[in-house]
């Protein structure tokens, strides 16, 4: 502001300087001397003015030189003018300062109270302040729209984050549920795998046992068949033996009958001879011859009886032998019959067993295959379940993260909303 | 033990001492679980029984008869006479042939001891309380080892007869 003054002041100076040159030299000299002193006063006064001592005045009357008087008056006028300008400027500065203070106050109000509703009204209407007012107004407008937008965004954000949180929470819940369900399933599948492994093993064992039993059973079948055949033979043989025994018995009986007769006769002879001997003995000497004959007879009879005794013994032996043979053969027949019965029973059993075993074997093999397949399937399922579990776990982790993030987001939105709340725009 | 030692015994029978000797000889047998003796001169011989022939209707203490030197002898089992377990009869069972008057009996014993000398001063009448056996003891003595009961054959026979069932 003093710039213009200084400029105008500067514009005057060169004129005064020219003036001073155009005077005579002599006079100049004297004048120079008087002027010099007067210049020096003026210079000092200018210097004082330039130093800001705007109350510096010259007394023009003191100057003899008309030019210098004019200069001094000018200087005084300049000083006056400067002084007044300065006062003006100072007054303007004060006004602007006041206006700025008010603007600042309004801004502070804006910030502290968030009151964007009012306009900036300055008590001092200084043109210099207009841009400031306009500027501040613009700022406030921009702020207002900004706050609007933020408020909207914050609301939306709040809503969205709430939704996200809800969804995330739900997701977390469902993924947790899913995870535990999957875990359970996996556990079950593991058990199933284990069980099916067991079954497979057992089935394998059953199958191999069945195979062995089948082989033995077939062997048994063969043995039974040959046993039955031998039983048949025994029975036939026994029948033949029976016939032979019967024939033999009949013959022996016939012999026995004959022998009995002989025996009877011999016995009678013996008795006769004994009695003859007895009589002979009683007769003493006289009966001696008689006794001798009787004795002979006795001996004969005894021989016969010995022979018949032998034959009878033989017959008894034969009878016993045939009886034993018959019994044995009967026994054999019975045994063979029973054997055949047992054999066919056993055969039936074996056949039953064989078919049973065959079924068992087949069944075992089927089970084995099935369990093999099942095992593969189960393994696959388990594998899949593991994968699912992994994914679910990750999802869980993710959803947990999401939930956390959503929660965070919601919190932030809330904070933002509460912040924005402080700004009144309506 | 004592085989057919007849000469020795005949010595005994011939020697009839005037005054009672300090000791007397007895033939000792083991019967009824104890030591029993017969007057030594009465004992003819000790034999092995051999095969016995049983007699019909004979009491238990008369297990049978056997021939010895052509003579038929009856066998007496004093154990059975006393109702005790009989002496087991085997072909090698020993019997002492006791001859006293009309009685000639082959007495079988559990064991045959042989001749023992009993000091006469130890000879005492048989104790009264030994029921059963006492009735045919003539005395009891001690040969220094233990008591020996002296049997009286006629009394034994009498006891035997009494215990047979009369015909």
């Amino acid at each position, binding site marked *: 502001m003093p710039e213009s003054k200084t400029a105008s002041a500067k514009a005057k100076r060169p004129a005064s300087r020219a003036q001073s040159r155009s005077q005579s030299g002599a006079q100049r000299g004297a004048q120079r001397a008087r002027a010099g002193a007067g210049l020096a006063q003026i210079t000092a006064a200018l210097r004082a003015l330039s130093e800001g001592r705007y109350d510096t005045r010259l007394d023009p009357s003191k100057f003899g030189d008309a030019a210098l008087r004019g200069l001094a008056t000018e200087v005084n006028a300049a000083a006056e003018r400067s002084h007044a300008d300065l006062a003006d400027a100072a007054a303007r500065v004060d006004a602007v300062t006041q206006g700025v203070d008010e603007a600042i106050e309004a801004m502070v109000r804006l910030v502290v109270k968030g009151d964007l509703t009012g306009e900036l009204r300055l008590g001092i209407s200084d043109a210099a302040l207009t841009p400031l007012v306009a500027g501040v107004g613009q700022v406030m407008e921009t702020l207002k729209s900004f706050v609007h937008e933020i408020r909207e965004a914050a609301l939306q954000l709040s809503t969205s984050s709430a939704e996200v949180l809800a969804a995330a929470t739900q997701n977390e819940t469902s993924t947790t549920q899913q995870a535990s369900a999957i875990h359970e399933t996996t556990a079950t599948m593991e058990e199933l795998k284990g069980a099916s492994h067991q079954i497979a093993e057992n089935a394998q064992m059953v199958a191999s046992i069945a195979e062995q039993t089948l082989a033995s059973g077939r062997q048994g079948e063969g043995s039974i068949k040959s046993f039955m055949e031998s039983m048949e033979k025994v029975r036939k043989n026994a029948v033949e033996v029976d016939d032979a025994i019967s024939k033999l018995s009949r013959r022996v009986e016939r012999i026995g009958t004959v022998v009995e007769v002989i025996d009877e006769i011999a016995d009678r002879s013996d*008795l006769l001879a*004994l*009695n003859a*001997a*007895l009589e002979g*003995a*009683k007769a003493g000497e006289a009966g001696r011859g008689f*006794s001798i004959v009787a004795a002979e007879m*006795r001996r004969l009879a005894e021989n016969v009886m010995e022979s018949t005794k032998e034959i009878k013994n033989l017959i008894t032996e034969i009878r016993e032998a045939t009886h034993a043979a018959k019994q044995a053969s009967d026994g054999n027949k019975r045994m063979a019959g029973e054997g055949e019965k047992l054999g066919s029973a056993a055969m039936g059993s074996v056949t039953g067993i064989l078919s049973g075993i065959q079924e068992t074997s087949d069944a075992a093999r089927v089970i084995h295959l099935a369990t093999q397949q099942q095992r593969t399937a189960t393994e696959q399922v388990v594998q899949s379940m593991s994968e699912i579990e992994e994914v679910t776990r990750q999802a869980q982790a993710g959803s947990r993260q999401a939930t956390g993030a959503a929660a965070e987001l919601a919190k932030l939105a809330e904070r933002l909303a509460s912040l924005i709340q402080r700004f009144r725009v309506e | 033990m004592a085989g057919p030692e007849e000469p020795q015994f005949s010595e005994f029978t011939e020697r009839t001492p005037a005054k009672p000797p300090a000791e007397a000889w007895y033939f000792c047998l083991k019967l009824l679980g104890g030591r029993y003796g017969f007057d030594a001169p009465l004992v003819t011989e000790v034999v092995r029984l051999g*095969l016995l*022939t*049983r*007699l*019909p*209707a*004979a*009491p238990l*203490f*008369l297990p049978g*008869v*056997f*021939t010895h030197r052509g003579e*038929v*002898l*009856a066998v*007496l089992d004093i154990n059975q006479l006393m109702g005790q377990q009989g002496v087991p009869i085997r072909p090698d069972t020993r019997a002492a042939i006791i001859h006293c008057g*009309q*009685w*000639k*009996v082959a007495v079988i014993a559990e064991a045959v001891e042989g001749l023992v000398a009993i000091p006469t001063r130890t000879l005492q009448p048989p104790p009264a309380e030994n029921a059963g056996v006492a009735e045919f003891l003539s005395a009891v003595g001690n040969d220094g080892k233990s008591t020996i009961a002296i049997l009286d054959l006629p009394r034994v*026979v009498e006891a*035997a*007869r009494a215990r*047979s*069932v*009369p*015909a």
Partner: protein
Amino acid sequence: MSEPTSEILTFQVGTRIYATEVYDVRRIGHGTEAGLTHVSRSCLGQPLASGRGLVVTGTDEMEQALDVDRVLGIQSVPGSSIQPLPAFAAQCLGSAAVVGLVVLDESPTPLIDIPTLIREQLEISAAPREKRIPDA
């Protein structure tokens, strides 16, 4: 032959062998002969089978038979082989039918008086129980 002999009939009852002098035996019959009194069981024992009967004439002139298993034979024996029972035995036996011993093959065989035996047995059978003689 100066030495006196005796005619001896030997017979078997059960497992035991006995002898008798022939004179008492009227005849030898079948064990199961009818029409006469049979004595089977006696102090001699009991025959296993009635093979023969030693027939004697009883006091009432009726025939009686002692049933025996078999008659072994009739033989002459020297008189010296027949001996009386030892005194001790004689007085201890429960039957009067054992009259002596005959030494056959160095083995003394009881000599039986058959009529006496039969009589004794019939008396015993008729008498009350206590009087029965125990068998040999």
